[in-house]
């Protein structure tokens, strides 16, 4: 049976079984994964798979199930069981499907039909080459964790009892390498990759390989620095982990439950005026773009922080109703095994206008953050404490690699002290930021 038809039939079936509302989210996946190491193919994995999640509401009670077994008898049993499950829950007046603004979903050019045609030999060649060039980047690169190539294709279908019936197809393609540099008994790892929806958009093998090599070598000799206060530059890629913490703290349910430090800060200045953050899943061909979100809303741009002012929290439909707020919902889906929930789709911290090099050259004594271990933000309190690595800046220049230090502070102080924003954003994933400088932070290392 056609998958969309199957989804529509399940919705009809559970309505007949007594559900008031229902939604089916179905995925159909193809994946190919290849790794090479030291010039030889190590693994080849390929498969197709599918699965669907069914959410039902009966008398404002919620039930959810998923299955990858699409046989007729199993689906019949599955539908019945899900309706029964909903009876266990307590009714909540806010439960139910979103009120949809009807419209046509847009085509963001997320599907590259040429990917399925790429012969395995070519994929193997790319993976071997990226590893080879990364290994050759520097004499001190001695070991390989491998080169890899992956591509995938996913069809997603969302059908519900409010008349929504969408489907979309997207492709993904990804390659890169991980290598290890060594000197004496010291080892440092470095890796880099390129991930796109279209084959043609991928970065060159050369660029990816050299970046992987560089990232391993540049850390050799890294050491802690004495504990002190210093200006700190967050590199554009490291910055993503910092923003992730703030975005978690903007979760609408946490705001409702008052378990986030941002609870009282809506419409207030929480960051430097340089900071504008937009959730934008509508960028053509971008890896995090989607025509409809996890709940079946047509995707749209939302300004989260505007010139330092916190404009909105991130709610899914049910939480927004519960909290009694009227807001554009933003819900994402981790796959068919769970219902949609409030989460940003593609966050873009808007670019600044200063060259990154210029920021560094203006610092006499400071820390350039290249790696963060975790998000660092304690969501209830807004305390920030994060293990970090990078470089020490001395007299406007990168002086030596640093590792084993913590950055400490308070997120609100940090946000307000973002003094300069660079113009170097690179739209690589679902969270994108330029580099920026914070006036001063606690850098903890040796006593």
């Amino acid at each position, binding site marked *: 049976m056609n998958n969309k038809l199957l989804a529509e039939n399940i919705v009809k079936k559970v309505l007949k079984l007594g559900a008031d509302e229902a939604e089916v989210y179905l995925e159909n996946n193809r994946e190919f994964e290849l790794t090479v190491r030291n010039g030889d193919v190590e*693994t080849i*994995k390929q498969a197709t798979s599918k699965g669907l999640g069914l959410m039902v509401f009966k008398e404002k009670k919620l*039930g959810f*199930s*998923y299955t*990858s077994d699409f046989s007729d008898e199993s689906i019949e049993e599955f539908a019945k*069981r899900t309706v029964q*499950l909903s009876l266990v829950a307590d009714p909540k007046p806010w439960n139910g499907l979103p009120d949809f603004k009807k419209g046509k979903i847009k085509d963001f050019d997320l599907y590259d039909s040429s990917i399925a045609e790429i012969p395995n030999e070519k994929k193997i060649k790319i993976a071997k080459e990226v590893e080879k060039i990364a290994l050759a980047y520097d004499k001190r690169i001695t070991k390989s964790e491998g080169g890899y190539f992956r591509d995938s294709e996913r069809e997603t279908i969302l059908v519900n009892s409010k008349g929504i019936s969408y489907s979309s197809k997207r492709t993904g393609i990804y390659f890169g390498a991980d290598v290890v540099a060594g000197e004496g008994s010291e080892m440092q790892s470095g890796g880099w990759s390129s991930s796109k929806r279209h084959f043609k958009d991928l970065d060159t093998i050369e660029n990816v390989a050299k970046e992987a090599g560089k990232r391993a070598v540049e850390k050799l000799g890294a050491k802690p620095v004495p504990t002190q206060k210093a200006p700190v530059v967050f590199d554009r890629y490291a910055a993503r982990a910092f923003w992730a913490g703030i975005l978690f703290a903007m979760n609408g349910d946490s705001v409702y439950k008052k*378990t986030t430090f941002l609870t009282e800060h809506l419409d207030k200045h929480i960051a430097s005026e340089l900071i504008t953050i937009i959730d934008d899943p509508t960028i053509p061909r971008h890896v995090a773009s989607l025509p409809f979100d996890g709940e079946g809303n047509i995707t749209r741009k939302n300004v989260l922080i505007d010139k330092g002012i916190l404009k909105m929290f991130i709610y899914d439909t049910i939480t927004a109703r519960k909290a009694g707020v009227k807001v554009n919902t933003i819900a994402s889906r981790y796959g068919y095994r769970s219902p949609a929930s409030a989460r940003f789709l593609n966050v873009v911290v808007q670019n600044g206008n200063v060259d990154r090099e210029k920021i560094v050259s203006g610092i006499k004594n400071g820390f350039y953050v290249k790696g963060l271990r975790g998000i660092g933000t304690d969501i209830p309190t807004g305390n920030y404490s994060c293990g970090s690595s990078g470089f020490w800046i001395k007299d406007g220049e990168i002086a030596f690699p640093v590792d084993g230090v913590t950055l400490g502070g308070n997120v609100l102080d940090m946000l307000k002290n973002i003094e300069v924003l660079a113009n170097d954003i690179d739209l690589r994933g679902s969270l994108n930021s330029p580099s920026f400088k914070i006036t001063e932070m606690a850098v*903890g290392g040796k006593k």
Partner: protein
Amino acid sequence: MKKYLKPIPRRKFLKTGITGGAIIATLPVWKLFSFSAPPSDFHVNPAVNLSKETLEKLIKIALQHGGEFAEVYVEYSVGNQIFLEENKIYGAGRGVDMGVGIRVLHGEKTGYAYSDDLSFEKLKQTAEVASHIAAEKEVKEPVGLKSSKIPSYYLVKVSPDSIVPQDKAKLLWKANSIGREYDKKINQVNVSFSDTNKKIIIANSDGIWVEDVQTLSRFLVSINVIKGDKRSRGYAYKDGTLGYEHYDLKVAEEIAKDACRMAIAMLPAESAPAGEYPIVMAKGHCGTFFHEAIGHSLESDGIRKKTSCFWDKKGKEIASKISSLADDGTVLGARGSINVDDEGTPSQNTILIDKGKCVDFLNDRLNAKLMKAKLTGNGRRESYQHYPLPRMTNTYLLAGEDDPEDILKSVKKGIYVARIGGGNVNWVTGRFVFSVPEGYLIEDGKITKPLKGIQLMGSGPEVLKNIVMVGPDLEILGGGTCGKDGQGKPVSDGNPTLKVSKITIGGAKV
């Protein structure tokens, strides 16, 4: 909370492990236990019970291009969850995963394919796809399948899958009312019960044919407290390879109280001091440190690729003389326990570090073969969609002889880690960061005030050398899901009370 260690013979082993080390590890401890039957009330879709003939056919097809080894992994898994928040049962959920993964090994190469369609036609195609990793003229004849019985380390009489969600809801309500009554400052009580019930069948070209039913259950309470602008969290859980008979209203009450205690204790917490301090780790709840910061670097894939910081350390001193580390898949009822790994190898107890010396690594089939090492029962995979990797089961630091009170008394100023939280480790350098959701200041040998924002930082190899005191009070209480290469796997961990002479604390204060 209750310990899930084995009865007397097992405890004795843990104690003697320090002095007896590797010799005792080879004793067939499992013979103490019966071949218990899996819970009969877990209903498995009969479609997954592939016949011996079908399995043998698939193995033969998988070897048709000359692969050295072929394996069929069949899985049927049912997961259930029920969740309470804001004084309401939020919802109940259920999920079914079913599929077959077929793997072919050839030299250092792996071919892998999987299917969620169990028709013979589809499985045949899947075997063909995997077979192409080899391209030899000579084709190997597989060994005929011989079914083998395995001992059981699970404590499951009643499958949680057989319990209706309405019954599980009673536990949730109990914990909720305990939490609501405990203290007025408690703002949120979240409670969940989840279980997975998985049948696996493994058959390979060496003639191994085993099946296992793996049950996991988990009862979790988390508490949020607000007072003025102060906020804190607490959590507690019971989990393991445990049947539903291990949960009742009393258990729900105990767990809820423990979570409340932690949340209230942490409310007045002050920012942690930054710098280098001695730390004391509380028994039972800090094993995650050894799992993440040490255990991963002893998994044989990183050893073979020479990318682990311990790759050339076998037979060498890597820890203080009082430190011994084990990975033991046979701890009765523990979350990481398995009767067989996901390659069909019986589970075992492996001493990794014996009195400071690195003595062994954790192997899956591929790495064991390539390194000419023995199998240790650590080839694990998340599901049929993944090929196995060397993974831990239950990892713990073995007991020592120092009095836990003396350990605390020996610290003039330091940090008491009551519970270790999430961590981040680079397995190449061994560098780590861990958060500490419950930690206290130690002043003059006494625990004084709660601290927030503690980050433990350093490198695993460094910390191992700085373990200066170890207590006799080993408990295995940690439980979670370990992630590696995108695959999640249930594990557990443990530790006795211990002291690390110095570790870097990253805090907000300078």
